[in-house]
C-alpha cells in the first residue's frame, strides 16, 4: 500500500515537473533548430548547431546590452542594499517620535503598484535630464519598502545587549552599524541583493520608457527587438537570445540559493 502511494506520488511529481519545465527545455531545444524545424513543430533539433547564437550576437549588439543590464542590476542591488539597510537601522535602533507610524506609512507604499507611480517618475526623470542614462534606470529603485521591511525584521532579532555592549566598548552608532549589524545580517542582505538583482535584470517596461537609443538599453528590450525586427520572427535566434539572457540569472540563483532559502524562511520559523 505504502509503495503504491509512493509510486503515484512520484508519477504526479514527475508529470508536474515536466509541465513546469517544458517551456524552458523547449526554448533551449528551439535555440538549436533552424527555421524549418521550428515551423514543422519538432521537439528535438536534428543537430545541435550554434548558428542561432552566432546570429543573435550579429543581429544586435547583445554584448553591450548584457553589459548595460549587468551595470544597472548591480547598481540597483547596491543602491537598494545601502538605502534599505540604513533605513531599517533607523527604524530599529534609533528611537524617535512617530517611528512606528512612519514605518507603517513606509510599508503601505508596497500597496501602491509601481505602474501607478510610473508617470510622475517619468516626468521627474525627464526634468532631471536622465533619459538615456544609467541614473534614470537605477535611482528610482533605490528606496525599496520591501527591502527595508525584510532587513528591519532581521535587525529586530539582534539582541539589544549587543548594541549596549558596543556602546560600552566605545563604538559609534555608525561603527555599530557596519561592524556588528551588517555582518550579523549577512543572510538577509544576500537575499535582498539577489532579489534586487533579479527583479532589475527582468525589468522591461521602465527601461523601455526611459531609453530611446542603444546606449543604455537592457537585454530584455533586446529580446523584444529580436521578435519585431523582421516580418517573420526567427524563433531560433530569439530563443538563443533568451538562453543567453537567462544564464547570468541562473548562475546567481544557484550560487545564492542556500542563502536565499535561509533568508526567506528566517523569521517564518521561530
Amino acid at each position: 500500500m505504502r509503495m503504491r502511494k509512493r509510486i503515484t506520488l512520484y508519477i504526479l511529481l514527475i508529470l508536474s515537473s515536466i509541465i513546469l519545465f517544458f517551456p524552458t527545455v523547449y526554448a533551449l531545444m528551439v535555440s538549436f533548430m533552424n527555421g524549418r524545424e521550428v515551423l514543422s513543430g519538432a521537439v528535438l533539433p536534428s543537430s545541435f548547431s550554434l548558428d542561432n547564437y552566432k546570429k543573435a550576437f550579429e543581429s544586435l549588439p547583445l554584448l553591450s546590452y548584457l553589459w548595460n543590464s549587468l551595470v544597472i542590476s548591480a547598481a540597483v542591488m547596491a543602491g537598494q542594499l545601502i538605502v534599505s539597510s540604513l533605513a531599517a537601522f533607523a527604524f530599529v535602533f534609533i528611537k524617535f517620535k512617530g517611528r512606528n507610524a512612519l514605518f507603517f506609512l513606509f510599508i503601505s507604499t508596497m500597496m501602491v503598484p509601481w505602474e501607478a507611480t510610473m508617470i510622475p517618475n517619468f516626468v521627474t526623470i525627464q526634468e532631471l535630464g536622465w533619459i538615456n542614462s544609467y541614473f534614470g534606470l537605477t535611482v528610482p529603485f533605490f528606496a525599496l519598502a520591501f527591502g527595508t521591511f525584510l532587513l528591519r525584521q532581521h535587525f529586530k532579532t539582534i539582541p539589544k545587549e549587543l548594541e549596549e555592549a558596543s556602546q560600552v566598548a566605545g563604538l559609534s552608532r555608525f561603527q555599530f552599524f557596519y561592524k556588528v549589524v551588517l555582518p550579523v545580517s549577512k543572510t538577509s542582505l544576500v537575499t535582498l541583493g539577489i532579489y534586487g538583482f533579479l527583479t532589475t535584470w527582468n525589468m522591461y517596461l521602465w527601461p523601455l520608457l526611459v531609453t530611446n537609443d542603444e546606449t543604455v538599453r537592457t537585454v530584455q528590450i533586446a529580446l523584444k527587438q529580436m521578435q519585431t525586427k523582421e516580418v517573420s520572427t526567427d524563433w531560433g535566434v530569439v530563443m538563443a537570445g533568451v538562453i543567453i539572457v537567462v544564464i547570468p540569472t541562473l548562475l546567481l540563483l544557484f550560487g545564492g540559493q542556500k542563502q536565499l532559502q535561509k533568508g526567506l524562511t528566517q523569521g517564518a520559523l521561530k
Partner: protein
Amino acid sequence: MKQVKLDGLYKTYDGTTPVLSNVNATIEAGEFFVLVGPSGCGKSTLLRMIAGLEETNGGAITIGNKRADQLMPSERDLSMVFQNYALYPHLTVFDNIVFGLHVKKVPKEERKRRGRETAEMLGLTDYLKRKPRQLSGGQRQRVALARAIVDESPVCLMDEPLSNLDAKLRAHMRAEIKQIQRRLGLTIIYVTHDQVEAMTMGDRIMVLNKGVTQQIGTPLEIYNQPANPFVATFIGSPPMNIAEGEIKDHKLFIEGLGPIPLPNGGAIDQTHVYAGIRPEAVRFVHDPVREKGSGLIEVKNVEVLGNETVLMFTAAGRDWYARWSGQWPVKPGDRIPVMIDYADVALFDKASEKSIKHGQSPDVAAEISREEVLL
C-alpha cells in the same frame, strides 16, 4: 582601580512612579560589591545607570574623581558583562575578546598579547578560532568575562552573569570570578537575584526592594543583623521564619508555638512585633515538660539532604522551616516538640519594620576566634 559613588540616585520611567529612589552607596576601589534583590527591584536598572545605558533622573554618579552621570558609556572607563553574554556572533572568540581594544586603537601587537594572556587566564586558548555558537554555555560565559577583563578597565559591571548556567557550573564560576577579581584587584559591581551568589562572592552587599535600599553591609552583617523582615527573609536558605508576635507578661507569644519567656532585664517597649527565627534556631526538645518555651508542631514536609534535614511546619499561619544537622527519622504528619531560645529571636517593630533586637548568630555560641582557627 577606582571608587564608585552613588549619591541620591533617582529613576522613573513614567515621571511619577519611582523605579529607584534615593540610592546612596560608596563602592570602594577593589571591592566586590553585590546588588541583590528580587526581580523587579531595580537592581539591573541601577547597574545600567552606572554603565550609562539608562539615564538618571536625579542624583549623581561619581567614578574615580569624575562626575559620570552625563558621560557616554564609553567615557566612563568601565567594562560590562551581560546576562546573555552579548557576544558578537560573527566574530571568533579571539576577535570577540579583543573587539574593544580594536575600537580603543590599542596597537596590534599589544592587542594580541593581551588577548592571549586573558584567554589563557580563563582557559580559552584552545577555542580562540571558534565562533560563539560552537561553544557551550560555560565557554561563552568565559569569553564574555575575558572580554570584560582584557579591557583593563578599573570598574567592571556584571548583570546576572551566571544565571544561564547549570548549578554545578555556576558554583565553579562563582569561585573563578572571585579569584580573578582578587588577583586583578578589580572593582566589581555585580547584580544577582541569587542570595547564595551574593553571600559567597560579595565583599559587601546592597539589598534592594522596590527601588529602595534595604541594607548595605558585609554578608555576615546582613545575615546576622538584618535591618528589617524583608532582608531577614531574603538572605538565607531556607529563609528566616517570620511571624507576628505579641509581648505580654514578659513573654513573647507566637501563634502555634509555646510562649517564649524573655530573660530578666530584657524588657521590650513594643507589644506588637514581628519575630524572626532562623531555621537552625528551631531546636528539638528531649524533655518538653521541663524546657520553657517549647511547643508541639505538626510536620508538613521533610527534606533529607544527607548532612541536614529540613522540616516544614505551620506557625502563625505561615510556612516555617526548621533545619537540623544530620539525618532525622521524621515523617510528614508527625507531631514533635520544639523550642526556641529568646536569644535566637530577632525582633522587628510591627509598624516601622525596623529592627529592635538581633538574633544571636549561629556560631557565636562556639566562640572560636580566628586566631584559634589558624592554630
